[in-house]
């Protein structure tokens, strides 16, 4: 094949590449806004699911903050996939405010001792240290056994609502371990991991209470 042929072939390849890239870029531009809106809606649905309805009048998604000491919540630093970062909410927590007073915070939490890998949770805690809600955002537990932690599969996860470090004081474990929380038939490891992670999140809130519920950032948020 002489040089001319090579150049023609290369030009052809380049031409097709340009057309392909153009096609993708056009679609991307056309769908960008909708995709961003979708993602925000999903995020808002997730966050508001763990907050008490009516206990806030702000947009918690816009009122996000970088977590202090994220490793204390089980979040893994270092190498992360896009999906893991997404499930960990990019190490961001959210504040719910009523009349500018922080009424609750929502934290991404990881239960590392799941049956098959990490279980990502969102935990909402109010200023008095009571849980306003817990939801699983990502897990790989066995379908039909461990996946009962999903709110769509069973009511188990709703049992955390209203609990705090003092309630139950000594019962923060599954029944099999002498605690107050049910395990599932055939699956103890999954609920045990979730109970521990939620308890851990409560301790975290107690430790960082001042930073979490301070309202100094208020002005910045209002300006946005």
């Amino acid at each position, binding site marked *: 094949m002489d040089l001319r042929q090579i150049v023609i*072939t290369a030009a052809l390849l380049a031409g097709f590449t340009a057309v392909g890239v153009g096609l*993708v870029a056009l*679609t991307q531009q056309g769908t960008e806004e909708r995709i961003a809106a*979708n993602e925000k809606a999903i995020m808002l649905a997730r966050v508001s699911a763990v907050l008490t309805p009516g206990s806030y009048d702000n947009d918690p998604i816009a009122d996000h903050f970088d977590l202090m000491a994220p490793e204390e919540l089980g979040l893994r630093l270092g190498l992360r996939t896009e999906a893991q970062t997404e499930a960990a909410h990019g190490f961001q927590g959210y504040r719910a405010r009523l009349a500018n007073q922080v009424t609750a915070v929502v934290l991404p939490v990881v239960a590392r001792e799941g049956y098959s890998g990490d279980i990502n949770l969102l935990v909402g805690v109010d200023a008095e240290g009571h849980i306003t809600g817990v939801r699983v955002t990502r897990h790989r537990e*066995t379908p*039909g*056994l461990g996946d009962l932690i999903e709110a769509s599969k069973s009511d188990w996860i709703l049992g955390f609502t209203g609990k705090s470090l003092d309630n139950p004081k000594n019962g923060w474990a599954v029944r099999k371990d002498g605690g107050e929380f049910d395990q599932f038939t055939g699956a103890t490891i999954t609920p045990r991991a979730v109970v521990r992670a939620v308890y851990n999140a409560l301790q975290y809130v107690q430790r960082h209470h001042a930073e979490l519920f301070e309202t100094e950032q208020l002005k910045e948020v209002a300006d946005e």
Partner: protein
Amino acid sequence: MSDVKLGNLARDGLWKNNPALVQILGLCPLLAISNTTINALGLALATLAAVLLSNILVSLIRHWVRPEVRLPIFVLVIASVVTTIELIMNAFFHELFLVLGIFIPLIVTNCFIIARAESFASRHRVSLAAWDGLMMGLGFGLVLIVMGAMRELVGFGTLLANAEQLFGPIAHNWTIYVLPEETGFLLAILPPGAFMALALLIALKQAIDRRLKEKAAARVQLSVTTKQPART
């Protein structure tokens, strides 16, 4: 080239040369995403759109593509088409997009799509290539949906659960509860269930083929015997 018949193409795609049951291509999404009917339907539609569009585009450009670089160009065409589909699904079927996850971009690597581009679309005119893409995509998609329905029925005892992910809010109560709750057979949803369901479908297809062949043979024999009456 002009002797390709539409009926034959349809028969090839849907039955005789079915991508999933006979060519056994594209198993990765087939096995992974066939755990519920709606997941299967979503991926089936995405795959159908991908093979249809890629066949049309490959056929359109077949006179310009040089043989030395044809494979990179086919891959480029397929990748562009799939990325476009991915973005559109992300925008309009966001929940389903989240469920199907990595398997939408993985359609690019579904070998039956590039197999159709190389062996058919690059050698035939656009209308035939489109028809072939449609039939092959339907053949693959139907197997996917049947497997999804089988596994969902046995595993969860339901059909069409989560239909709202694909059809919007009107589909909220489309779920059909076939078996009483919590009687599902877990194995069907787990990965081994996918292999078993596929094996059952392949076996079923072969059984039907054999039955048809025997019938045809019997008919031939019958006509032979009636033509030549016994000489005894």
